[in-house]
């Protein structure tokens, strides 16, 4: 994949706001279209945003602003989302689960790219990375976390977020 990188890879306040808002819209839109599940923003949940087992998909966006998008789903919710996405049962420990969460994250990043484009923020997206673990906290040294959002669905909560380096005022 060809990546074009401008010199302005740090986010301004306006870009950060646009990215955070666009991410919420992208998550709701993709989860609704792919999993046929209505998601809405909710208050952070200790067992979703903090401790607990999760599978996490990550996609990098590079260009006018460098960012990382992640999607974190607890096992019970992930199994329902993957089954609705694939049309067949997907066990949490199977490689298909990693593929499903990777694809969901990829689609969210693709949707986010279009929305950012409308805000005149041009980015290219990487291929997704997926990992699974216990008590995973979204944090990256020297990168400022814009937002870790929590979403509520009838099948449980999940988290999505965006990390970007903030431009100094």
């Amino acid at each position, binding site marked *: *994949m060809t990546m074009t990188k401008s010199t302005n890879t740090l986010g301004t306040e306006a870009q950060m706001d646009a990215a955070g808002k666009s991410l919420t819209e992208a998550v709701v839109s*993709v989860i609704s*279209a*792919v999993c046929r599940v209505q998601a809405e923003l909710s208050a952070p949940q200790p067992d979703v945003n903090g401790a607990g087992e999760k599978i996490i998909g990550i996609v990098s966006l590079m260009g006018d602003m460098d960012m990382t998008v992640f999607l974190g789903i607890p096992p019970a919710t992930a199994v329902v989302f*993957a089954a609705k*996405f*694939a*049309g*067949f049962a*997907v066990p949490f420990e199977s*490689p*298909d689960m990693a*593929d*499903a969460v*990777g*694809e969901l994250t*990829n*689609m969210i*990043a*693709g*949707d*986010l*790219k*279009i929305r950012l*484009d409308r805000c005149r923020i041009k980015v290219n*997206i*990487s*291929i997704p990375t997926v990992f699974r673990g216990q008590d995973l906290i979204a944090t990256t040294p020297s990168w400022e976390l814009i937002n870790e959002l929590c979403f509520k669905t009838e099948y449980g909560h999940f988290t999505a977020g965006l990390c970007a380096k903030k431009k100094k005022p």
Partner: protein
Amino acid sequence: MNVNALVIDDSGIMRKLVMKSLGETRLAVFTFQEAKDGLEALALFKAGKFDMLFCDWNMPNMNGLDLIKRIRYELKSKVPIVMITTEGTMDKLEEALNTGQVDSYIVKPFTAEGVGNKIAPLLQKMSELKKNPPSVFARLAAKVK
């Protein structure tokens, strides 16, 4: 109509979904081979005979665009290629569509009905070509062109 299709995607679940959706269209009897990136697909393509390719865009090792360029310009193949893409790569896809490198595309997430609508015209064209293959003169003229 029998169609030997090559499905290329780094995601195993997406390959399964593409094959499932194609089967559900009932537009043809599909047999499939799978590749997880462009390099693997290129090796399979050189070794086999395929009627249609379904190719993801974003893949490791060799992405979809590089693969179709190799197939079109190096191997000089006119095999119908359907790109599988997300909204995020539609801008790059348009160029490939306009230059004839790609015959059609499917945007993720997709349904069997949506896939059917996209491939029906390609299958129709393939069927007509099988019934009325171009004359030697027409093939030569196309080659010269």
